[in-house]
């Protein structure tokens, strides 16, 4: 028996152990699982019954059975209901698709069976065939993430989901459902952010999401305007970005709706009664703000503006101002008021206090002034802030008699002067002036002689008849009356020359004056300053100094730079002012505006004396400290002297050579030099020097040059002769060339042809000359002359040919007869030159004296070829014979032989045969020829 019991226990333990190891079937399955969705909140509540406290949960998207939650949770039994309850927040709107859930109990490693699946249907079930999108009209904070789903209509395709303008990547959740997740959403526009679900053809559906901020209001302050009610205001803060009515911020003040703010008209709330503390709640779908304030009523009084402000009594120097309050409770309030008076240069602020203040007397006003008054008040005790300003109110004070004038008398000579007075300022005139009254009296005359002057006058001339002092009284008049007269007695005239004036140096443009106190100055002192040397209507200015002072600073704003002032100090008493001291000075020295005058140069030998005069005082603009003298060169001025004594107004420049000079003289002050005066002078020599230098010296130089040339030529005469007149061997002519022959009378052929051919080998560029019309001769002659300069034998041959041709042609005869004829002929100049040589030896060279050539010439109209052949024959057989014969006969021929043989003989026809050679052949071998030949 014990054995069976033991076995049963062991078996039971073994079963338990095996059951505990498997974990299935022991724990009871949770019962009665129900799903309760909260669609707007996107939450799903699960409730069930079970004895366990630990459960496994699984939630699926039903259609595709995608697990969206698999979690183990510990849930205790609700003691009231006896149910277990657990809530799941879905990131996806629960309408998007159907959700299913089941649950099982867990006890450590042992779990129960899953409960049956419970499902909540989504909007994508077949019964709901239309398109849809979730969630709709959500209000979310900026930066949040959000999932949207689109349920496509049955039989409709899906293309995309747009978030605003952004195409999103969609995830398929079921047959008809697609979802996107927008992250970090930006603030929406006025009408929200559109999320659109599209097919290929059109917009299927959509949703709007409003992305914004929670309220940002701050700074609640409550105050009272009527000592009873309250007005609370605050700052709006950051814009929530939520403008749709449903998402706007709603305000409550101490639990009451704030209508003013909710209507979005202004950011304040009113309350009929004052409360010790105030709480403003600002709430929108994204958040709530609580603003607090607490204060005593008397500490938060903000008075309204005074009304009906009027001036009940306006005088010249004061006015009484009254006003009233729109709140009766103000009458007992201890208040402080501030008045702002605005007038031209007369602005001021005045404070007044009192209970229920409604009237004040404005003192210390100025006569005849337009004032604008603005008034505002505040609570005196527990002052919070100034109340509203009243409307500006205008007050015009009455006029009063003018103040006494500041009068001074200035004498410009011993018996003439002028009374000056200074114009009255607005503060002193007390009304527009209508004129001045000037009265004067003297010792000889009793009583005053009044004169009325218009308001624009500020001076009156006086004349002393017999040199006795007179007293002048001046008074200003305005509609309110006449001012107190101001009197002045003529001071004794003291010319500047009568005084030893000291130079007054300025300090920063001002004059600092000081003088010895004078016992007679019972009425103080007068400092007078006037431009030095001024006459007529002078800008006399003065300043009266109390007798206690013996110094005065004359400021630069009453002085003009560059103007010399005479400053005088007078002692004032009941009688005439007494001159104490006088200075002259410049407030600021400047460079002279004009240069020195009458600058003149005066030559004295090699010296120049420069003299000038100083410029006028008004142009000096400073004390002249000296002069500088410059020598003006081409580009700069060379300082040659600096005269530091302004009294010296001349300078001698010494040791100048004969040339032109420019001198510049500049005066200088402490500010610098003026522009300078320029004078030019040309240094001239004395008459004897001029004669010597101008005539004798050039003559002497010329003479010396001639002598030198003569000596040189004499010494080098061999070379000169060789160079300019070489020996030319004389021609050897057979036969008798000496017998004169009859002159040939040959007229030039009308068709004079010259065909010059040197040789068949001659360069084409130097082709022989052909006869040309006479008009072309000159140009051709030029060429020929150029060629003749060369030593080419061809030209010599040409020359000879021509000469030869002429020796037996008509042309030669004609030209030999007269040189003029050659000019008239059609011969070239070469012909002319060549023919001229035998002109004087026509007897020797004419006719058949040159036979070889004569033979070749047939006639003037001979064809060229024949001429050429003859020429060649001559060159081959005759050699140079004809020339030898030229030097035989007459002395003339001998003379010419030298030139003809010379290379220069052609070009230097003049040298060889001057124009007058025909008539005077002899000069060609005169003294110069002899000189060159070494003959004496």
């Amino acid at each position, binding site marked *: 028996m014990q054995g069976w019991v033991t076995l049963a226990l062991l078996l039971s333990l073994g079963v338990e152990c095996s059951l505990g190891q498997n974990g299935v079937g022991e724990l009871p399955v949770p019962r009665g699982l129900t799903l309760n969705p909260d669609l707007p909140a996107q939450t799903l509540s699960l409730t069930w019954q079970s004895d366990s406290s630990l459960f496994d949960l699984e939630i699926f998207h039903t259609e595709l059975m995608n697990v969206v939650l698999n979690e183990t949770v510990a849930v205790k039994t609700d003691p009231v209901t006896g149910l277990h309850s657990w809530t799941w927040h879905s990131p996806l709107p629960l309408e998007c698709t159907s959700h299913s859930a089941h649950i099982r109990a867990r006890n450590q490693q042992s779990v129960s069976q899953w409960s049956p699946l419970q499902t909540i249907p989504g909007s994508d079930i077949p019964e709901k065939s239309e398109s849809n999108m979730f969630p*709709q009209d959500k209000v979310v904070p900026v930066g949040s993430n959000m999932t949207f789903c689109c349920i496509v209509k049955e039989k409709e395709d899906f293309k995309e989901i747009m978030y605003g303008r952004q195409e999103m990547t969609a995830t398929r959740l079921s047959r008809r459902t697609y979802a996107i997740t927008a992250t970090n959403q930006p603030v929406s526009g006025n009408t929200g952010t559109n999320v*659109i679900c599209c097919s290929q053809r*059109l917009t299927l559906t959509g949703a709007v999401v409003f992305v914004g901020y929670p309220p940002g209001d701050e700074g609640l302050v409550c105050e009272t305007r009527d000592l009873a009610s309250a007005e609370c205001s605050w700052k709006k803060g950051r814009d929530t970005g939520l403008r*749709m*009515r449903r998402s706007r911020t709603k305000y409550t003040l101490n639990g009451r709706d704030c209508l003013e703010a909710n209507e979005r008209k202004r950011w304040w709330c009113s309350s009929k009664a004052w409360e010790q503390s105030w709480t403003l709640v600002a709430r929108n779908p994204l958040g709530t703000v609580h603003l607090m304030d607490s204060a005593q009523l008397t500490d938060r009084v903000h008075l309204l503006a005074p009304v009906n402000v009027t001036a009940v009594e306006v005088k010249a120097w004061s006015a009484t101002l009254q006003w009233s309050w729109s709140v009766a409770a103000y009458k007992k309030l201890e208040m402080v008021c501030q008045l702002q008076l605005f007038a031209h240069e007369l602005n001021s602020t005045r404070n007044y206090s009192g209970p229920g203040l409604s009237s004040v007397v404005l003192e210390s006003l100025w006569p005849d002034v337009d004032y604008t008054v603005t008034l505002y008040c505040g609570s005196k005790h527990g002052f919070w802030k100034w109340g509203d300003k009243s409307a500006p109110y205008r007050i015009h004070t009455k006029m009063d008699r003018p103040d006494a004038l500041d009068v001074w008398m200035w004498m410009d000579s011993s018996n003439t002067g002028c009374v000056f007075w200074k114009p009255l300022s607005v503060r002193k005139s007390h009304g527009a002036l209508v004129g001045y009254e000037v009265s004067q009296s003297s010792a000889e005359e009793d009583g005053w002689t009044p004169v009325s002057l218009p308001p624009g006058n500020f001076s009156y001339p006086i004349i002393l008849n017999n040199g006795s002092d007179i007293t002048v009284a001046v008074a200003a008049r305005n509609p309110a009356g006449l001012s107190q007269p101001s009197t002045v007695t003529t001071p004794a005239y003291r010319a500047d020359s009568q005084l030893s004036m000291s130079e007054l140096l300025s300090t920063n443009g001002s004059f600092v004056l000081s003088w010895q106190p004078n016992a007679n100055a019972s009425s103080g002192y007068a400092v007078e300053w006037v431009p030095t040397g001024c006459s007529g209507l002078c800008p006399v200015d003065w300043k009266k100094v109390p007798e206690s002072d013996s110094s005065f600073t004359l400021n630069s704003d009453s002085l003009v730079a560059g103007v010399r002032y005479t400053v005088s100090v007078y002692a004032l008493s009941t009688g005439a002012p007494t001159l104490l001291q006088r200075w002259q000075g410049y407030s600021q020295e400047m460079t002279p505006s004009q240069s020195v005058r009458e600058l003149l140069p005066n030559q004295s030998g090699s010296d120049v004396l420069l003299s000038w005069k100083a410029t006028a005082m008004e142009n000096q603009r400073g004390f002249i400290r000296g002069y500088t003298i410059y020598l003006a060169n081409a580009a700069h001025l060379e300082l040659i002297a600096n005269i530091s004594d302004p009294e010296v107004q001349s300078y001698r420049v010494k040791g100048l050579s004969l040339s032109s000079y420019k001198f510049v003289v500049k005066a200088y002050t402490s500010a610098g030099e003026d522009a300078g005066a320029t004078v030019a002078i040309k240094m001239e020599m004395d008459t004897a020097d001029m004669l010597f230098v101008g005539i004798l010296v050039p003559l002497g130089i010329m003479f010396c040059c001639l002598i030198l040339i003569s000596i040189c030529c004499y010494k080098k005469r061999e070379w000169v002769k060789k160079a300019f007149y070489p020996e030319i061997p004389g021609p050897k002519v057979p036969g008798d060339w000496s017998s004169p022959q009859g002159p040939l009378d040959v007229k030039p052929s009308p068709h004079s042809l010259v065909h010059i051919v040197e040789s068949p080998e001659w360069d084409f560029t130097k082709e022989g000359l052909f006869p040309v019309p006479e008009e072309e001769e000159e140009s051709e002659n030029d060429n020929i002359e150029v060629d003749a300069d060369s030593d080419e034998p061809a030209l010599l041959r040409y020359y000879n040919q021509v000469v030869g041709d002429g020796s037996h042609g008509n042309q030669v005869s004609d030209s030999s007869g007269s040189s003029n004829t050659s000019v008239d002929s059609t011969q070239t100049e070469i012909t002319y030159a060549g023919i001229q040589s035998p002109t004087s030896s026509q007897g020797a060279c004419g006719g058949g004296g040159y036979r070889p050539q004569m033979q070749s010439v047939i006639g003037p109209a001979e064809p060229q070829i024949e001429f050429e052949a003859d020429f060649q024959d001559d060159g081959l057989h005759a050699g140079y014979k004809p020339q030898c014969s030229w030097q035989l006969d007459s002395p003339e021929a001998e003379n010419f032989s030298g030139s003809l043989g010379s290379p220069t003989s052609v070009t230097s026809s003049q040298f060889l045969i001057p124009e007058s050679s025909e008539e005077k052949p002899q000069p060609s071998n005169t003294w110069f020829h002899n000189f060159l030949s070494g003959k004496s």
Partner: protein
Amino acid sequence: MEGAADSDTPVPERSAADRAAALARLLHRDCTRLLELYKEREDFLSQHAPGGERLVTLALCPEAPSTAEQVGHVRSALRRCMELLECLIVREVEEMGEELQGEYESLRKTVKDRLGHLLHSTGALLENGEGGCPPSPPMQCIQGQDEVEASDSFAAKIWTYKVLLELIHWTDSASQTLHVFHTEKHGQQQQQQLL
């Protein structure tokens, strides 16, 4: 009655039809511009045109053999458009308040005013009761919301878009019909004068 009116004052009546046609053309341009402005605000409308049923139809109205009856039908549609527009304005002001005062809001008011003038003008042209189609039943603005099919903002935007489309359509129809009406009247008067 009409004949008497024509014989007495032919010119004013003719010019009234002409003026109504011109007003309809002007209103059509305004409505087109209003839709452009709305599309600028809700730019998705420019990218994907929403589908759906028409808001104003004359499907229940009998055939309109004469132009005068066609004018009557168009006027009935315009009256319905006017009710939709007023409802639209109320809804938008309620949602957005009166703070927004841009070109859209200004033109929206202009369209409402001119549509009222056009309804008055066409009513004056149809003094003897042309237009066989009875006017649409009065539409409460709350019913207008019902037509949105939902109370969400997106549906309201689609509905607004549809209202603006209807305005464009019926003002265009009105301008064409009134032009034909004016032409026919003018021809009839010329024939009468010839007789």
